[in-house]
């Protein structure tokens, strides 16, 4: 049906307006076949709109996009034959059972009835949903719903899969399960475009990231490159006693630059690239009688990257960064 294009997604200057609001304002994307690409940005940045244009659900107002070399507008049907979408609202039918959902999708993809049933059972089993197979999806937990959603997306293995915030609202355990599934998909060669507002998620799963803000790409690179662009790493310290934090802040400020107080009343961090310096600072804290629960020296998080890129935190999502920003502007 299609030749093998080196690029799974190739978008040029995509624009989409909703009334007077420009949701997407000239987004360019190039996603290599076989990679996991992250689209990162706060709520309302234009991530979902971008994904919906690429998945043929919305028509771009201007610009163009190709999926495996096929135009998403003029060859929408071919594109639909190669992609699947797991939306922000789980794209499953709540009024049917999990098994019926999968049979329905299988039938719509052209599997004969017995094969569709067998396929549904195989997927339910692989995704740990066999016990819940006959239950209506509206009675599923959030994690089960997402797993079913992903299962429905791979009834026939897509060449490209759009995952729009697949773990938003999930508890950590369910989130890890979804991550495991994504890794398995990648292992089988499916290209993935992952929209997320969790910087941690992009860091964990993707080979490349674009950061989108106000409908524009504001940065692009590997997670490592983006972190490097922010500069040094940071020392994170967590105290046993919140009352000692002002004292600890004083000690760290003498040794290191820019000390941040974290939203966790027992946590603080300071920019620091050098392990020896960090060790000294920790030793100093200890000598001053400050009790430390734990400490770590790490690369800057993508939260910090976002802050550095936009001058503001990655929205309400990361309350931690919001507080840091407020402290900074207050100083």
């Amino acid at each position, binding site marked *: 049906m299609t030749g093998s294009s080196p690029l799974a997604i190739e978008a040029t200057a995509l624009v989409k307006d909703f009334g007077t609001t420009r949701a997407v304002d000239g987004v360019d994307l190039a996603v290599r076949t076989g990679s996991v690409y992250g689209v990162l940005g706060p709520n309302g940045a234009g991530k979902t709109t971008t994904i919906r244009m690429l998945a043929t*659900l919305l028509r771009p107002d201007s610009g163009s996009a190709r999926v495996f070399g096929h135009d998403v507008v003029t060859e929408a*049907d071919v594109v*639909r034959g190669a992609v699947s979408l797991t*939306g922000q609202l*789980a794209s499953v039918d709540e009024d*049917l059972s999990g098994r019926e959902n999968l049979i329905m999708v299988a039938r719509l993809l052209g599997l004969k009835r017995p094969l569709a049933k067998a396929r549904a059972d195989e997927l339910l089993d692989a995704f740990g949903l066999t016990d819940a197979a006959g239950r209506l999806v509206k009675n599923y937990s959030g994690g089960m719903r997402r797993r079913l959603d992903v299962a*429905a997306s*791979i009834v026939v293995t897509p060449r490209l899969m759009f995952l729009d915030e697949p773990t938003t609202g999930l508890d950590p355990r369910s989130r890890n399960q979804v991550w495991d599934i994504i*890794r*398995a998909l990648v292992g089988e060669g499916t290209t993935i475009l992952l929209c997320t507002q969790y910087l941690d998620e992009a860091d964990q799963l993707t080979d490349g990231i674009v950061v989108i803000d106000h409908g524009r790409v504001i940065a692009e690179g590997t997670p490592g490159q983006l972190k490097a662009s922010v500069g040094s790493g940071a020392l994170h310290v967590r105290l046993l006693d919140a009352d000692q934090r002002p004292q600890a802040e004083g000690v760290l400020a003498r040794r290191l630059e820019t000390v941040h107080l974290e939203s966790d009343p027992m946590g603080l961090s300071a920019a620091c690239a050098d392990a020896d310096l960090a060790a000294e600072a920790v030793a100093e804290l200890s000598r001053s009688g400050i009790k430390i629960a734990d400490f770590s020296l790490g690369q800057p998080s993508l939260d910090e990257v976002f802050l550095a890129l936009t001058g503001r935190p990655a929205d309400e999502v990361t309350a931690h960064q919001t507080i840091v920003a407020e402290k900074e502007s207050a100083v």
Partner: protein
Amino acid sequence: MSTAQTKEPDANLVDEIAVRQALSSTPRPPRPSPFSTVLTFGWRGMLKIRHVPEQLIDVTMTPVLFTLMFTYMYGGAISGSTGEYLQFILPGILMMSVLFTTVYSGVALNTDLTKGVVDRFRTLPIWRPAPLVGAVVGDSVRYLVAGTVVVVVGVILGYRPEGGWIGVLAAMLLVAVFAFGLAWVFTTLGLLLRSPNAVMNGGFMALFPLTFLSNAFVPPETLPTWLEAFVDVNPISFVVTASRGLMDGTATAGDVGVVVASAALMTALFGSLTTRLYRRG
């Protein structure tokens, strides 16, 4: 069947190896035909009725109430006897009960749109109008249920079709065909209005006057001339005339043809409008 057990069983639920196997195991089959796709969506509609059989209460209770109320309230006043009036209005009640259920097609579509599953349908490589056509085809089962209830209640109360059972079946089928066409008007409404409630209200606001200001319940000759003029051109009157004719065994091909033609017209016009709106999202 569906127990209210919402807690997940505690185990390592996702087996990565099994997921990988599941991934590689199915090659892409050839695309299904539009017909088979429509049937799958019809099947989806049936499943919903099976899971929530209460949905059929409206469809079955309303006709029973209408038949009983109209016959015993107005029978004496309008026709001099309940038996004679029943003979006159039963085709009208059949029409009304079935057409009222068409509003639900629009309501169901509007409800669907707020759910993520529509995104799934829109990203599948299928014949685009299939979800809509399938839903309306599935709804036709409701129309037939409503129609059957009316006729059964009517017969219990003493209705005797002079056109025989063939006539009754033909009338039911004709009303269902018209309902299929009319349903597209409400699916259009379902895509234009904001909430399922708005569709419901809008639908009934339109249908109430249209069904009552027809020849379904009173002979039009008894009406003021300006109202009679309206009743004579009301499309619903044509449906009633044709189905009454079929049940009485007096229908002409013209009576029936006009109804089938208007159903076809509505399907063509509002069917394509619905499809266009649905595609636009």
